[in-house]
């Protein structure tokens, strides 16, 4: 396998230009939503609103102002699929449509997906959505086609401030650590990395530098794999089956008043009223 490739998104230098969103849409030929009708959110410069099957990059606009709006700050973050090393979507996909590529990225094969939507429920980040044109679940591929051609993904190529860095994950982690140290030195002690180490789902190949709690950026503070409930859920279900089975045996068993259980019974007469003799059988 080639070396793991990924994104490091430094939110402190994102200017909210949405060039990444546009480049992603153009390169991947993602259709417009609502048939191209211009729908505005009405309460933000963010009209994309979320990641889904039509939006594989999403620039979040977080306003943090006081009530008088005399002091505050913008938090801007270009969100994307995290290409988790241990990916929830890949775990649950029943068709094998979701694969891990030679770049350690996670890709949905549109020609295999049948639209069961289990991956949407399995993703801890709410990244995946349905593409109404293809009828399949879709998300960022980390521009797999561009990677195989030796090019960098469209979003990072288009980013004018280098908020989105593309490269080998190992290199990106070193670079990100230096950037956090620099910010700490220069008076921004809140800076930290989200998903850069192995503790979060084995590591996120697309990780972020944040300056507030993850929830503020609509990121889960403690994302988990869906399979965490598989063992215990199965054991409890088996216990339920055992209880039901025992109750059935207790309820239906003979108690010395039933006669020969191997004897065929005329089943066209009402149960409980049977008075057949051995060998007797009435066909309707």
């Amino acid at each position: 396998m080639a070396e793991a490739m990924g994104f490091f998104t430094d939110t402190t230098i994102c200017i909210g230009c949405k060039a990444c969103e546009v480049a992603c849409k153009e390169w991947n030929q993602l259709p417009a939503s609502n048939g191209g009708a211009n729908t505005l959110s009405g309460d933000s410069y963010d009209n994309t609103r979320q990641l889904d099957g039509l939006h594989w990059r999403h620039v979040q606009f977080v306003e943090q102002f006081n009530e008088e709006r005399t002091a505050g700050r913008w938090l801007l973050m270009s969100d994307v699929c995290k290409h988790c090393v241990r990916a929830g979507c890949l775990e649950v996909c029943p068709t094998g449509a979701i694969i891990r590529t030679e770049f350690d990225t996670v890709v949905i094969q549109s020609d295999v997906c049948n639209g069961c939507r289990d991956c949407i429920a399995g993703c801890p980040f709410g990244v995946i959505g349905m593409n109404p044109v293809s009828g399949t679940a879709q998300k960022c591929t980390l521009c797999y086609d561009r990677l195989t051609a030796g090019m960098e993904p469209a979003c990072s190529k288009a980013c004018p401030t280098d908020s989105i860095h593309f490269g080998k994950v190992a290199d990106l982690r070193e670079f990100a650590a230096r950037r956090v140290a620099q910010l700490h030195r220069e008076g921004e002690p809140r800076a930290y990395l989200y998903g850069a180490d192995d503790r979060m789902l084995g590591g996120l190949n697309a990780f972020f530098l944040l300056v507030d709690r993850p929830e503020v950026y609509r990121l889960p503070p403690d994302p988990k794999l869906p399979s965490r409930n598989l063992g215990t859920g199965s054991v409890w279900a088996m216990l339920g089956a055992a209880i039901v089975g025992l109750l059935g045996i207790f309820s239906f068993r003979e108690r010395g008043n039933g006669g020969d259980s191997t004897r065929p019974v005329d089943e066209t007469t009402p149960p409980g009223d049977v008075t057949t003799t051995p060998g007797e059988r009435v066909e309707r």
Partner: protein
Amino acid sequence: MTPNVPSTFFTDPPHWQWLIVLYFFIGGLAGGSYFIAALIDFFGRPQDRPFARLGYLVAFPAVVLSGILLIVDLTLPLRFWHMLIESNTGQPMLKLYSPMSLGSWALLAFGFFAFLSFLAALGDAGWGPGRRLHVLRPPGIVGTIVAALGAALGFFVAGYTGVLLAVTNRPIWSDTALLGLNFIISSASTSAALLILLGLWRWRSAGGIERLERFDSLVLIVELVALAALVATLGSIFWVWFSVWGVLLLVGVVLLGILAPLALHWRPRTLGRALAAPVAAVLVLFGGFMLRVVIVMSSSGMGTGG
């Protein structure tokens, strides 16, 4: 400031709606009817075998309907076979750690055994080739193997749907490991209720009804305990059900679906013996359906993902 929100609230809903609710209910009836039928065949009195036959007659059409519901719910229904065969290699597609993958195979296998038992039940009822199909039902060796494997798969089909919901990252579903347990117990109570209704409709008064009612009462008591345990395991997430869903759970599932039928089983004279059994059975079926409505739909509306 954003308050502390559980991580499951940052996910998106898969838009599993009424078709899936119906599948969970009918699939539960398919599995439940079969394993009750097998339990009667294995452990019951010969006089009660007609109820087992009813169970087999219900299970196969129900599992066929379940498959249809699942296929129709796919956004690309013609690719339903991708659940079983890798479309790009032609190899079997089975992921043991994906409940949906395992469930697809289980549904197919259960359908096969349900079909064999359905044929046997038809034979017992005097339709089709008759006596020759009788070997597909216990107590013969072939019938015993068919019913045992079918019952095991019936339990699986009845319960894996709950595990499937738990193996996601959605609020409520993945916040408890007890959905599979609750679904299996509920499938037993609803299937027994359905067999009671069909038995009453077929034979008006039948001696074996009391045994099914006793079974249903015991299962309903266990269901109440399992539901309480489910709520307890949700912890602080339970606040989600301080809503119309909580009302439906309390009134539709607990009061109408569990406590009222239990009361009717206990004191049938309240409504008169002729009415008590069918009314209790209808209430149990209603409660089982509402349980699935509440669990599936209450989670569907939540999410701030991406």
